[in-house]
């Protein structure tokens, strides 16, 4: 049974090419994926991300629960509305999912987790929450629209109630606040995203979603499909769950070390394994690759290094760079000349530090 977001008919009316995406009928593009990519880098585009799972956590021990559940430290969230990116690990230190947690108040936090992992995430969170008496409540009554690009915030601002504009304009990165949208609809606006551009991710009650989408379109925000979302996040150096990491991969092996907080006295799930891995070093590392000649790097292609074989994780043609880039997981150590096997041909690639693109421009050395 394929699930549909509340914007399904809107996408179809716009002539979107629809695909099955983790059990959801979603728009891959509305014509040209490359043009949609460029409009987000240069102006403003919007994505229906209502397939993502919103979970509210209520209870007096909610913070204590999140200290235990997440590899990043929820104690970094001190101010109402602040958000934090974190991995949720199993006992072996493998990544169950990556997510964003928002701080409402000491009794109420909100998680946004991936669509493809919804069921196992809910089961895991509910299992862990019992000991803390925390209520886990999925919010299918919400939809979500990501508005991204250098002009995204300005275009959203014009739709907000006057009394909210100044406050939302001042919203810092990775912070969120409530505001009134068109016709007074209640919005939860977060200055977050998955494209490497500035912008908002807006959580909106389902019944107002179509009206918000139409108001954004009227304000000059172009619809963009999940195809463009994927090339944008790859250029921005952001991991995709299931492709770049999963339960067999530790955050150290997925370049997510920056999200691990080994703060004093916090006993989070997977911590022991992560500490041992940190002490011993991991056998595999995640790197960025650039292909300077013609061709496209793809998921699953073999990567050849001086220390043995690795594999391409996310790989694609990068529209901003006009060449192919990829993440790869390769054996640790000095890799020597790195090559990728493309249909039996060994093609030299460059190992680079990523992100590949930030704020509309190629990063240095790409």
């Amino acid at each position, binding site marked *: 049974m394929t699930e549909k977001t509340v914007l399904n008919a809107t996408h179809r009316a716009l002539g979107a090419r629809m695909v099955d995406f983790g059990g959801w009928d979603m728009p*891959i593009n509305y014509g040209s*994926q*490359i043009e949609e990519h460029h409009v987000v880098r240069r102006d403003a585009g919007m994505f229906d991300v209502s397939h993502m799972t919103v979970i509210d956590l209520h209870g007096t021990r909610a913070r204590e629960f999140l200290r235990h559940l997440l590899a990043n430290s929820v104690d970094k969230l001190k101010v109402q509305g602040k958000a934090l990116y974190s991995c949720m690990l199993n006992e072996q230190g493998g990544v169950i999912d990556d997510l964003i947690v928002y701080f409402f108040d000491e009794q109420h936090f909100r998680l946004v987790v991936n669509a493809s992992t919804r069921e196992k995430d809910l089961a895991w969170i509910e299992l862990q929450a019992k000991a803390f008496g925390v209520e886990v409540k999925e919010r299918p009554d919400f939809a979500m629209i990501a508005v991204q690009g250098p002009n995204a915030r300005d275009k959203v601002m014009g739709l907000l109630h006057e009394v909210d504009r100044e406050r939302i304009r001042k919203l810092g990165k990775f912070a969120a606040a409530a505001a009134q949208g068109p016709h007074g609809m209640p919005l939860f606006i977060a200055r977050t995203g998955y494209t490497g551009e500035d912008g908002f991710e807006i959580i909106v009650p389902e019944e107002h979603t179509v009206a918000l989408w139409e108001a954004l379109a009227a304000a000059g925000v172009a619809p963009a499909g999940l195809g463009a979302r994927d090339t944008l996040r790859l250029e921005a150096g952001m991991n995709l769950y299931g492709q770049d990491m999963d339960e067999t991969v530790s955050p150290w092996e997925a370049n997510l070390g920056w999200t691990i907080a080994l703060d004093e006295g916090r006993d989070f799930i997977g911590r022991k394994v992560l500490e041992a891995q940190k002490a011993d070093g991991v056998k595999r590392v995640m790197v960025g690759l650039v292909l300077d000649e013609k*061709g496209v790097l*793809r998921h699953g292609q073999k990567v050849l290094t001086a220390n043995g074989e690795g594999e391409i994780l996310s790989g694609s043609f990068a529209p901003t760079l006009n060449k192919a880039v990829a993440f790869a997981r390769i054996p640790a150590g000095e890799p020597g000349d790195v090559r990728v096997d493309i249909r039996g041909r060994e093609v030299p690639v460059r190992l680079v530090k990523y992100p590949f693109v930030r704020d509309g421009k190629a990063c240095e050395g790409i």
Partner: protein
Amino acid sequence: MSEIPGDLKFLKSHEWARVEDNGLVRVGISDHAQSALGDLVYVELPEIGASVQAGNGAAVVESVKAASDIYSPVSGEVVEVNEALADKPETINEDAYGDGWIFVVRISNRDELNELLDADAYAEVIENEDH
């Protein structure tokens, strides 16, 4: 969806073949195929002089999404390739039945042409695919 030119013959896998006045066979992919693949970013052309077999891979087109083998509709020798696609692969998206041709084959067995679908039969194939 643009009209399917009546002078073309097709494989079910969406390649077209056009027999030209000089008897050579020009090959490309259908408008339906380019639309399904999305923006093309790279075309791996066959070598001139290469021999190709009907129904076997002869070229590769890569869209942002995926790489796809292009099967030759007929057997023979490749006598011309569309070099312009090296810099402008999107020509296939823009004009799949015209400037977006991929290679030209000197056919070795003309009987193979009878095994290809005509435009109406191909239209039926893509119609059924959409359901």
